């Protein structure tokens, strides 16, 4: 069988390449680009990219809006919830839960409650369709870099589908909050997440209320009306204020204090959502807002302010050098190496600041760097479960008929989509994924996939002997596999399970 393994360079990787003048070949460059900027190579992709020219292909990928994606669009047409607004989804898939809770008898169990909800209105459908579209797009979209960056930003601004209302808010969150902004200005993306019902609910800001003594006059009665007696005790919730600085912008060492967290929480009071029966949409509620004077990160606000305080803080956070550094570091960790060179991170951060947080230019700065193309970066990163599973499906030219078994496989491997509970999301470093147990799951997946036994994915086993599987094996692995004299199915399974294919 024909494979991409022509070069003795592969062995050097194991012995520690000195930072050399060695350069990747054009073929390796194409494979590297497909591994890092796409979900791996499908049969023939390496040749295709070489034909277009690696740099030209990257340029196209940086402008996904210019790439037609009709096949995937056609596939996604079957999923109704993907086209529904937040309010529509909430009405159809969440209100039945609310109604059932109201109507249930005192000793009703979870199971009783479940039975009260019509099967075609269960919220699981929303999350299942969301999983399906992500997997289908990663597997088949021609806008591959776009899907890589969606994965990156969804993880950066993580929202957990398991938290109550969020299971029905994530569709719009990904479609309307994340996707339209990932090639624009960081401030716009940050603002969109800050005003998204999904994030406001996930990090509890929707229910953060000014302390009674700091509320506008006559607001108390309104608050009680709005949320019943529960809100009598209403007060500050620091969760979002902390995470927007620690995770979304400045980074944990970004120079803020506990006092800043509390003060920023006061700034964001009133950034809330309407009740589910009103569609769970973003609403600034002046009555919940802390109208007293405050000071965050040295910025002073006089008494009597409103939503503009939070908007100003988002502008300041988005333009902070600490934020530039934090975003640069995370992008480099995702695209280049677990511990990226400081000089690279500094350069990318500088580009972020120079371009007013232009995310296309910032990503381009990572890809255009010499570090990205350094032979030391080649195959230096371990694939996450999502990257691994999807790159394997692509490598054998698999057709995804039903994405849900793959979604379950990702759960088994430790990376269920929309399933990261902590606001940190999933790790972009190898340490988080690599251990014997995880390896067993991957090897079993590789063998099942290659023998066409992975449910939901169709693999033409008769073609396995004639295709390039998108990796470059070391001579050692090549020999190990050839010594088995196995059939093309087992051979393909061994390649997909090989240490080289775990890496990108």
């Amino acid at each position, binding site marked *: 069988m024909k494979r991409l393994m022509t070069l003795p360079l592969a062995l050097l*990787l*194991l012995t520690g390449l000195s*930072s050399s003048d060695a350069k990747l070949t054009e073929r390796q460059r194409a494979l590297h680009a497909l591994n890092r900027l796409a979900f791996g190579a499908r049969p023939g992709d390496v040749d295709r990219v070489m034909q277009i020219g690696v740099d030209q292909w990257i340029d196209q990928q940086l402008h996904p809006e210019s790439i037609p994606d009709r096949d995937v669009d056609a596939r996604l047409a079957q999923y109704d919830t993907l086209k529904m607004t937040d309010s529509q989804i909430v009405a159809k898939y969440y209100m039945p839960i609310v109604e059932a809770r109201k109507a249930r008898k005192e000793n009703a169990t979870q199971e009783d409650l479940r039975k009260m909800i019509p099967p075609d209105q269960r919220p699981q459908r929303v999350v299942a369709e969301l999983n399906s579209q992500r997997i289908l797009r990663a597997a088949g979209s021609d806008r591959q870099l776009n899907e890589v960056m969606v994965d990156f930003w969804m993880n950066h601004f993580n929202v957990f589908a398991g938290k109550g209302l969020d299971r029905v808010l994530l569709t719009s969150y990904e479609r309307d909050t994340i996707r339209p902004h990932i090639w624009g200005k960081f401030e716009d993306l940050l603002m969109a997440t800050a005003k998204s019902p999904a994030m406001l609910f996930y990090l*509890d800001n929707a*229910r953060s209320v000014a302390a009674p003594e700091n509320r506008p006059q006559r607001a108390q009665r309104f608050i009680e009306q709005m949320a019943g007696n529960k809100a009598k*005790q*209403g*007060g*500050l*919730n*620091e*969760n979002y204020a*902390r995470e927007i600085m*620690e*995770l979304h912008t400045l980074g*944990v060492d970004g120079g803020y204090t*506990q006092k800043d*967290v509390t003060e920023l929480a006061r700034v964001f009071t009133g950034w809330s959502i309407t009740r589910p029966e009103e569609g769970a949409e973003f609403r600034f509620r002046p009555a919940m807002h802390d109208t007293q004077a405050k000071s965050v990160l040295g910025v002073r606000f006089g008494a009597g302010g409103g939503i503009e305080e939070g908007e100003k803080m988002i502008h300041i956070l988005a333009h902070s050098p600490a934020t530039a550094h934090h975003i640069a570091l995370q992008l480099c960790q995702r695209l*280049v*190496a*677990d*511990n*990226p*060179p400081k*000089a690279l991170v500094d350069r990318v951060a500088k580009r972020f600041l120079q371009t007013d947080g232009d995310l296309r230019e910032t990503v381009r700065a990572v890809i255009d760097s010499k570090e990205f193309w*350094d032979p*030391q970066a080649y195959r*230096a990163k*371990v694939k996450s479960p999502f990257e691994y599973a999807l790159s394997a499906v692509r490598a054998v030219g698999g057709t995804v008929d039903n994405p849900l078994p793959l979604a379950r496989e990702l759960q*088994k491997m*430790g990376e269920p989509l929309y399933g990261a*509970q*902590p*606001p*940190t999301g999933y790790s972009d*470093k*190898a*340490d988080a*994924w*690599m*251990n*014997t*147990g*995880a*390896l*067993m799951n991957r*090897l*079993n997946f590789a*063998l099942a996939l290659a023998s066409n036994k992975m449910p939901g994915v169709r693999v033409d086993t008769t073609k396995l002997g004639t295709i390039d599987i998108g990796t470059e094996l070391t001579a*050692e*692995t090549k020999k*190990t596999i050839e010594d*088995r004299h*196995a059939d093309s199915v*087992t051979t393909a*399974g*061994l390649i997909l*399970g*090989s*240490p080289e294919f775990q890496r990108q």
Partner: protein
Amino acid sequence: MSIDRRFFLKSSGLALVAGGLLPNVFVKMANAATTKGKKTLVAIFQRGAVDGLNVIVPFGEKAYYDARPTIAVARDQVINIDDFFGAHPSLVSIAPYFKDKSLAVVHAVGSPDTTRSHFDAQDFMESGTPGVKTTEDGFLSRALVCKHDQTASPLRAVALSPALPRILSGSGGAVAMSNIAQFGVQGAADAQSAFESMYGSASFEATKILKSAAPAKLQPENGAVYPNNQLGNSLKQIAQLIKSNVGLEVAFTDVSGWDTHAGEGGAQGQLANNLRNFSDAIAAFTKDLGSRMSDVVLVTMSEFGRTVRENGNRGTDHGHANVMLVLGGGVKGGKVYGKWPGLGAGQLFENRDLAITTDFRDVFSELLAKQLGVGTLKTVFPSYDVSPSKWRGVLA
């Protein structure tokens, strides 16, 4: 440039060094490992920062009730321990172990670092080096390295999770698995041997032992019924590993859902439900192991406590000191250890949180030394003054 390429070199990771097939070594290993009487330490991490003040309630403190008008657990609802502290009523299933003195509490315990970031605080607690972010391995892994043992089993340290947690990462030889019954390559023998030579046989020793010992076939004993949740499932499998004598010394699992910023509840509600699941899983584990519990110590931990005062959403925000439970053989239980700093004005850390009077490293130092026989704690907790004089005497 410093691109990280350690990964292939790690014993627990993907070794690229092709090893021989050495089929018999595993049999020997398996035999060496099946020595009875190995002592085991089981650690449960409550991720998300459990509200320790509502787990072991200082009902003797008026300030506790003042600070928590809607979520305090009433005096007549707690399970009394010592007329000052009482356990949350949801802990009823483990309450008998207070009585028979196999369950102890350490209160006002935690990590001295002041971060209120879940991520950082968990990281510091698992690395065992509060405030130091560059530590590469976890402290339980370092403890295993210190206790180097030729006959140690490839299953000496197991994390019941899909990925290896920080606390066990490093060269201690821990493995992670979420299902002990499905651990191993399921395909043809030929494929297995090929993968073995690609990754090195070390990665596969554990699977062979598991295959021959078949612990997953063991049924819970003594009428133990595990709750059908993730922690129950993990503890059931840890019990199976212990009962099948595969040489388990350290087991780790985690349980989340403790980040109760809103609607925490008091004697009933969100935290109460989580605590009931938590307690029932631990009670089933203890019952299942029966007399084998004499060789087992189970300890619970969480990254930090929660604010003394409830917040505007009837929940609590990120705080400082917390509570740890220690259960098992040799535990001098039935009481609450540690100096109580009080909840009154002027007694709180940063005027909002329970202050720390016991460093979590002092609790773990004692457990590692007495339960596992780890001699050189200096490398387990570098740059910390490990001194038996600071131990609370939780273990005999």
